[in-house]
């Protein structure tokens, strides 16, 4: 087991390197370096920027170095000092902004994943056991609808319905009263009362796929001779299904976290922009619009790193569950 985890961790290194390169490219992509836009912004406010200041800033950010040197400087600052650069838009260190937002993104994405899981598993098993029943068709249609409706559409419909019929806005994760309150049991309850809306919206897209996977897996297992044997021996049908086919069908279910988690993070970003949640989405969005490149690059970097860690955890879970994987 430990050897598997170690090998898996080693594989993560090239992944992380490539992710960091992509994030660095994102920082460098917009035409002109960010200092130019910073100076333009300062000048538009009427303040005078003399050449000496510009030179010292260029020096400080190493903008005259070759790209490869800039990349290593940037990476070194992150790894050694936790310094992601500076957001000119917010006039704050990027790391501070990210730390405020990232945990909430992960909370929402994880909650959505758990939601998708807990809904898809029973429905998937049920659809397989009662194949071609009315309920099976109903859930199949529902699943496909979840697949076809864009996340943000669902969020918009939620916004519209709650505005129309309940007269309240569903935006945000906290009531205004708790926005700046210290953490406590009431604040957590308030968070939970807001959390379910984005969780359902983000979760539905993943649920559809998971139901299909579970259903197909359980169906495959149900046809195997050992199930027949167990049934012939008089095992209670419910117990039989839960004890054997479902357990084996769970494997692909867990490995699917690997590709569902990136989708959840993606969905979280776009839904949180629509619902204006205090997560990474709106901040990344505004950073991209105002070309606050260091902030945008850092967000993409951290979202990708978190996803990679999530996938790693799912792989370890899978190996723990299925000895064939960790021994191969």
């Amino acid at each position, binding site marked *: 087991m430990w050897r598997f985890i170690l090998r898996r961790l080693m594989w993560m290194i090239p992944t992380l390197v490539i992710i960091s390169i992509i994030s660095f490219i994102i920082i460098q992509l917009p035409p002109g370096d960010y200092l130019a836009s910073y100076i333009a912004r300062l000048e538009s406010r009427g303040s005078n920027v003399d050449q000496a200041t510009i030179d010292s800033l260029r020096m400080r950010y190493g903008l005259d170095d070759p790209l490869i040197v800039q990349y290593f400087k940037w990476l070194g600052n992150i790894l050694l000092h936790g310094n992601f650069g500076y957001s000119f838009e917010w006039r704050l260190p990027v790391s501070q902004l990210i730390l405020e937002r990232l945990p909430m993104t992960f909370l929402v994405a994880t909650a959505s994943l758990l939601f998708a899981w807990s809904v898809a598993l029973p429905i998937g098993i049920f659809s397989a056991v009662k194949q071609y029943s009315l309920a099976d068709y109903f859930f199949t249609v529902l699943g496909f609808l979840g697949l076809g409706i864009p996340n943000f559409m669902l969020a918009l419909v939620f916004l519209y319905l709650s505005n129309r019929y309940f007269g309240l806005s569903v935006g945000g994760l906290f009531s205004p009263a708790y926005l700046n309150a210290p953490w406590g049991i009431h604040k957590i309850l308030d968070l939970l009362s807001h959390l379910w809306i984005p969780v359902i919206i983000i979760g539905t897209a993943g649920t559809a796929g998971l139901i299909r996977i579970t259903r197909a897996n359980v169906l495959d297992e149900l046809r195997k001779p050992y199930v027949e044997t167990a049934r012939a021996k008089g095992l209670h049908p419910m117990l039989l299904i839960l004890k054997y086919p479902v357990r084996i069908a769970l494997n692909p279910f867990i490995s699917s976290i690997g590709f569902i*988690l*990136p989708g959840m993070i993606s969905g979280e970003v776009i839904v949180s922009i629509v619902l204006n949640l205090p997560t990474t989405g709106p901040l990344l*969005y505004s950073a991209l619009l105002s070309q606050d490149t260091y902030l945008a690059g850092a967000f993409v970097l951290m979202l990708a790193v978190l996803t990679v860690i999530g996938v790693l955890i799912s792989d370890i879970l899978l190996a723990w569950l299925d000895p064939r994987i960790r021994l191969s």
Partner: protein
Amino acid sequence: MTIETAASTSTASTGQPEESPLRLMWYKFRAHRLAVWSLWIIVGLYLMAIFANFLAPFDPETRTGLPYSPPSWPTVMADDGFNWPPVVYGVTSKLDMKTFKRVYTVDTTRQYPVKLFVAGDQQSWFGLFASDRHLIGVESGGAFFLMGTDALGRDVFSRVIYGSRISLSIGLVGVSISLVLGVILGGISGYFGGAIDLVVQRLIEIIQCFPSIPLWMALAAALPHDWTTVQVYFGITVILSLVGWTDLARVVRGRFLSLREEDFVMAARLAGASEARIIGKHLLPSFASHIIASVTLSIPSMILAETSLSFLGIGLTPPALSWGVLLQTAQNVNTLAISPWLLLPGGMVIITVLAFNFLGDGLRDAADPFAKERLS
């Protein structure tokens, strides 16, 4: 050569013509009813995109002077009785001075019969010739807005029809680029195996665990602002394909791996066929059907991605028209509250995505007509 003729005469003599694989696939595809319907829906959607200037009652940029007018459908029950042709009524708008909302009242005395081939806005047909005929419509003045109007009084239904041109084509163009990338990289990976295979597989895994929306957002936002619509269109498609090729590459690689060991490939090799000939003549045709199925299944995600990006305002922007651009007007909850019909373009997205999903499902089942019926 002699063997082949012998075989063909033997089948001819039994009187039972052998079914070609293509025909078998068609039989199998036809059995998937939902897929067949979806195929027709998709054909219809693309025809709609091609003949947009004839089908849309208005020019997408025509301002009718009736902003945020709710959808008004033609009725056959005018004047307390059945009436043919159906009519739409005129509307008068008034600004409610208390709420500052625009209130539309239907004026049943003004009736406009819905006519076919009605004269309307002048339309150019791909720059070839111009015509002012529209399939369906009413004379000017009637509120013939099947999906209401937007903030500038433009007919949403006409805009949806025109928007389908970009929304539907971006999926095809994007998938074509992904296909080229996928076949080349997946093919190399599967055919040669070894270290190349390992590198390509790692690359695919890395790209697949990248959350795509933030990446797309970042790349799309970095497109130069002075680009023309056409440049942005291709820029977006390239960005989408950079992520989208991985699934196709996996399919191609998997097929190459399984076919590489087949006897007919060995036979071709022994007969002295070159690598290029083996790949092009023997391998590609034998898994073309699988590729078509995978391609169909990856079109919807492209369409969804373009819609999401344009909805956020960092994909295509007006004057370009796509369903995502149209949905952008529905971003504000206050606008949405008074004019929920602005969400209707999203309905087209859902229909298209579902149709492509079902079609892809059916094609995947049909791709291998010799496979035994899957148990599930």
